[in-house]
């Protein structure tokens, strides 16, 4: 139990610490590709600190949902962060690491965010929630299939065991992992509302999805929402990194191990964030009705992964 306590404190602290970094890094990469210098790498930290100090204002129409959503969101995300070990893999404990529970935590956060969008009574919020739920209805089946494929390939439902296994093998022996990580990359892009799906920088009524829902939030509530969005991104990135290139992740807790794992994760995360930034700069935003084609690509790859795994087992 003691080791698990250590794990939950260290992992949560590490996730909180690095999440804003990746957000700013993606912004920085996009700025460089556009020929700008971009904000400093610590900008997201400053933003969160600044918002924390500000006063919270509620619309007169809003109910309790608006007040509890930011706290629920950050709680769901921090709970989900226990499922993706970034430093070392703890001894298994019941319930923690179940891949479907992880999915449900992410979806619950999304659900409350959509409710909060409706709650304030502004038209933008309702529009954003409606779009988010429409997209979710299409992407969720694909996400479930991709996660089921992960469970099928690694023959376990526990994410910690998956990562232990992927630590032991390499892509060379396990080509399905390459396919599934492409699906996971598409999910990372879709779930963190990045460019072909949604533009995180715009406040234009025609295009915003995620931003529209949090438009009515202010002060510390907004800070918590931004932070939970950053954590969600780090978790999905961590999942992809731990599946595709888990080198450096420690099996046993130890001072040196954890130091190495932290440095390695930050390095790999930086590379992935730069890739995401470049990807975002190189594609145009898709029309809403063309998005299913992108999701179906993830579905296709997941399906082919299952087939590959079947062939591998012959």
């Amino acid at each position: 139990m003691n080791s698990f306590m250590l794990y939950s404190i260290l992992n949560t602290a590490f996730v909180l610490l690095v999440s804003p970094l990746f957000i700013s890094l993606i912004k920085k990469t996009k700025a460089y590709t556009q020929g700008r210098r971009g904000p400093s790498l610590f900008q997201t930290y400053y933003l969160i600190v600044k918002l924390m100090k500000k006063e919270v204002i509620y619309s007169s129409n809003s109910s309790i949902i608006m007040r509890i959503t930011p706290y629920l969101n950050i709680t769901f995300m921090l709970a989900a962060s226990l499922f993706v070990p970034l430093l070392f893999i703890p001894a298994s404990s019941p319930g923690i690491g179940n891949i479907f529970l992880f999915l449900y935590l992410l979806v619950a956060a999304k659900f409350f965010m959509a409710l909060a969008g409706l709650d304030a009574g502004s038209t933008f919020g309702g529009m954003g929630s409606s779009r988010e739920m429409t997209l979710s209805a299409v992407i969720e089946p694909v996400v479930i299939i991709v996660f089921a494929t992960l469970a099928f390939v690694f023959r376990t439902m526990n994410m910690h065991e998956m990562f232990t296994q992927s630590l032991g093998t390499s892509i060379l022996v396990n080509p399905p992992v390459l396919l599934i990580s492409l699906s996971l990359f598409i999910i990372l892009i879709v779930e963190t509302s990045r460019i072909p799906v949604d533009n995180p920088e715009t406040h234009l009524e025609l295009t915003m999805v995620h931003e529209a829902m949090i438009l009515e939030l202010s002060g510390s509530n907004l800070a918590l929402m931004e932070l939970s969005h950053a954590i969600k991104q780090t978790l999905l990135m961590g999942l992809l990194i731990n599946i595709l290139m888990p080198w450096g992740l420690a099996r046993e807790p130890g001072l040196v191990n954890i130091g190495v794992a932290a440095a390695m994760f930050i390095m790999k995360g930086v590379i992935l964030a730069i890739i995401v930034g470049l990807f975002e700069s190189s594609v145009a935003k898709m029309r809403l009705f063309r998005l299913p084609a992108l999701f179906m690509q993830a579905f296709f790859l997941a399906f082919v992964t299952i087939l590959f795994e079947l062939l591998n087992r012959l």
Partner: protein
Amino acid sequence: MISVQYELTRILFVLVLCSAALLITQRSLTSLFSIYAVQSLLLSFVALLLFWKTGVYALLFIAGLTILTKVVVIPYVLRKVQKDIYTKRDLEFSYLSPVSSILISTALIFVVYKSFAHFRFGLSQDNVFFMGAVIGVSLLFIGMLIIFSRKQMITKIIGYLTMENGVLLFSLFIAELPFIIEVLIILDLIILILLSAILAFGIDSTSTMKEFHRKLDPFSLWFKKQQK
């Protein structure tokens, strides 16, 4: 016992399937040509890996020929044609939207896998051969799907070329076509590309039909001169 060549081949198979998925959904013509070139390059790597494993020189020639024709010459000709017909994107799909084509192609791959599973024991020792056969035939069907669902001539050509890639993959792993037949297929392919490029002028660029006739005119004058 794991052989490096076969493991690398499996990774290449993965990439070939990804390229097939992109060929179904992409709309921009230039990226379609590039994806086709990359797919052919991947196939030539597969041939090279097989050569590394078995040492049959015909495979080396096939790889070289594939790179020369399908990675360099054919995409070059297609790009030239595309420049002349003034279209950048193929936006129209008949019968099937890209989403349903992808769903159907997953079903097709599964059907091919199921039907091949019956006689896989007769095939060979390593499952990489079975995999190559399944993916080759699936690629052939995906090519047919592209021909079926696209409207423009030039994207139909891409579909045909994808089918041919499927045949090449299949023949690499199962049939072992004699080298001379591979050469003939590729010769056929080049002639076909030239012919269909001429057709594409007429079909895809209705606005430049006059342009097309004007371009043909010098030839007819030349022919008449010869007849005299």
